[in-house]
């Protein structure tokens, strides 16, 4: 079976999982949540197999590289990492509420990668600049970071939602009762951001080491480099505001949303600016 066929099945599974998380939220029955988690786990397993098949296929065609070399492959890996980190959080916290925000982002990434006419899903050989052992560690750490920040974004949205309805006690919906407590959401936002921050730091550093070997300079102020630093600084500001000035809850949730916008710009928006990271343009 072709790995692209598996990937379209996975896209569908993530969509179905999202719908089931939505059902859980609307009807307040844990049955839907269990079904949603099952589909997400199944999708993750199938996607892992598809990624391995694509990896193998590149070797069969004599190109032999890890499937992390262009926009299509990075989007697929991004979706994979979001689902992985989300499911770990779900498993650790025993709460399925964030799924309704995290899983659709993974679905959108998968769907955009396969539908957009600008994104080629073909396995292409590596151009000289990408022929490096640093490719894997750089891309994996960056996207694990992005994925952790995406989960923080989901928790941030949930926090703001719950915080908004906290005032009117008269109409307690079934969904609100199922939400994690604000304290727990705050802790989840912080923990995902801490995880993402470490991954992003290592991602920027592996990128620097790679640039040192490929371009002769560990830092070139390429727009993607600068934007990754902007994102890093936004989260650094957030961490300082929390540690030293005691920012919690709503402010942290808003900052998680701002950070996510910066991530999206670092990943996609930057491609419209001139620079060195042009591999992602097609």
């Amino acid at each position, binding site marked *: 079976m072709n790995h692209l066929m598996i990937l379209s099945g996975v896209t569908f599974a993530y969509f179905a999982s999202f719908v089931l998380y939505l059902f859980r939220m609307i009807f307040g029955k844990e049955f839907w949540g269990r079904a949603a988690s099952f589909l997400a786990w199944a999708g993750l397993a199938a996607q892992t197999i598809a990624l391995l098949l694509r990896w193998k296929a590149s070797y069969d065609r004599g190109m032999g590289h890890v499937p992390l070399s262009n926009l299509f492959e990075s989007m697929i890996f991004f979706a994979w990492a979001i689902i992985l980190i989300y499911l770990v959080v779900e498993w650790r916290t025993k709460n399925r509420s964030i799924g309704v925000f995290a899983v659709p982002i993974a679905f959108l990434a998968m769907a955009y990668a396969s539908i957009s006419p600008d994104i080629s899903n073909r396995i*292409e*050989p590596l*151009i*000289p*600049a990408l*022929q*490096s052992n640093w490719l894997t560690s750089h891309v994996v750490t960056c996207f694990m970071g992005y994925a952790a920040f995406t989960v923080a974004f989901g928790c941030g949205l949930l926090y703001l939602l719950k915080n908004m309805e906290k005032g009117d006690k008269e109409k307690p919906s079934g969904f609100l009762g199922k939400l994690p407590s604000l304290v727990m959401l705050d*802790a989840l936002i912080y923990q995902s951001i*801490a*995880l993402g*921050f*470490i991954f992003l*730091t*290592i991602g920027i*550093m592996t990128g*620097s*080491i*790679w640039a*040192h*070997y*490929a*371009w*002769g*300079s*560990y*830092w070139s*102020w390429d*727009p993607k480099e*600068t*934007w990754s*630093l*902007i994102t890093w*600084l*936004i989260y*650094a*500001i957030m961490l*300082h*505001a929390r*540690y*030293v*000035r005691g920012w919690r809850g709503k402010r942290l949730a808003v900052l998680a949303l701002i950070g996510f916008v910066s991530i999206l710009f670092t990943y996609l928006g*930057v491609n419209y*600016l*001139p620079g060195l990271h042009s591999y992602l343009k097609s």
Partner: protein
Amino acid sequence: MLLKKPNPLWSFFSSVKLTIVLLVLIVLIFIIATFLPPQEAAQEFVQQLSLGTAKVFFFFRLSDLYHSPLFYALMGLLSLNLIICSINRFPASLQQYKAPYFPEPAGIFDNLPQNQIIIANKEKSTVSLAVESYLKAKYGSVRKIDTKKGHVFYGERGRFSLFGVYAVHLSVLLMIAGAIIGSIFGLAADINIKEGETINVVNLAGGKGTHPLDFSVRCDKFTVEFYENGAPKTYRSDLSFIKNGQVAHRGSLLVNHPITFEGLRFYQSSYGTAPEIKAIITYTISRNKSREIVLAAGDTLDLPESKAKAVVLRVEENIMELGPAVKLRITSPQKDVQFWVFKNIDEIKTANPGLLSQVPIFNPGLFKPLVFSLNRIEQQYYTGLRVVSDPGVLLVAVGGALMVAGLMIVFFWSHQRFWVRMEQEGTKIRISVAGRSNRNSAVLQQQIDNLCKRIGQELKA
């Protein structure tokens, strides 16, 4: 603690509010900088601005914000802020580090939840031994003091994590220092070398003049390979590094595989084709005497046997749809002739019998007795190299490693302190477990719950 009133400047620089303001300003500068045209295109951009806007543009060095005084000033303030904040907070951390184990913080055993209290029906010495050995196994070392009714034990972990934040801040300063050293003492230059050419001077980046090398570099060959889909596969320059007239090092330079020679690193950064095309020409002087020579347009060639001189007028890849050709002009005291030398002269002759007598300019043997033939023509490549030396790299790398280590400590460790009190109550022994942590109270609670569970199990066994 400082007794004298703190200097207002000092308190200004030791505030985290300042850090946050500076970081926000730096973020704004970066955002603006990425949207402004890059330095190369700035000239064109400025011409579209009004005079006033253009003045602002130049005043803030907006064409190159990353190297502007504004950005340097912000980085300077940030470094100062970082240093002073760290100095200011360090004594408190040190005090925490040296904090005594006993007496336990006041009131720590008051109002404990039920699960943090264990009642044991055993001998005092048995309980004491069990608790002590368990704490020792878990936390490496255990302290103990005797009280009127029993003992208090103390175990801890992650004491060093109090300094994680200083490691992160130091790492930022190391990286900034590395960047400064690199920009002052470093060198970045570019050079294009044609195949066969030897250079010993490179052009400093940013148009800052030239820099002589203590050795020469020769490009022996440049190769570019393509995949079937047309994408580039390999750029390779075969280089010879020549010192005192001797080839000291020979190597193939590839993208991602720089070559270091005498402290300078060479990178494959670009390539191109030289404007001239090389022609490889053979000419026969007599029946068994011929010479091969490589010429480009404008080159001259001495022909001593005929007391003549040849000039290459043109080298063409494909002229009149007849393939590659070279136009020569040969002058001697007797003659001045011009003619074409076609690579495919045999095919042309076969297709057009009698051509050479009708069109003498197509005759490669027009200047008798010499006969010329064109073996092939070649595109001449040049390789574009980047030449770098950056003495700050080591410092930046150390800073990077320290930052990752520091962040791991900050996020994954905390200083957790545990006190376990044993009190004789009639025939029973009451054990209370309490803890303190500098952050991450959720993890601490887990640890305490786990500790209580394990002590309970230990005592049942």
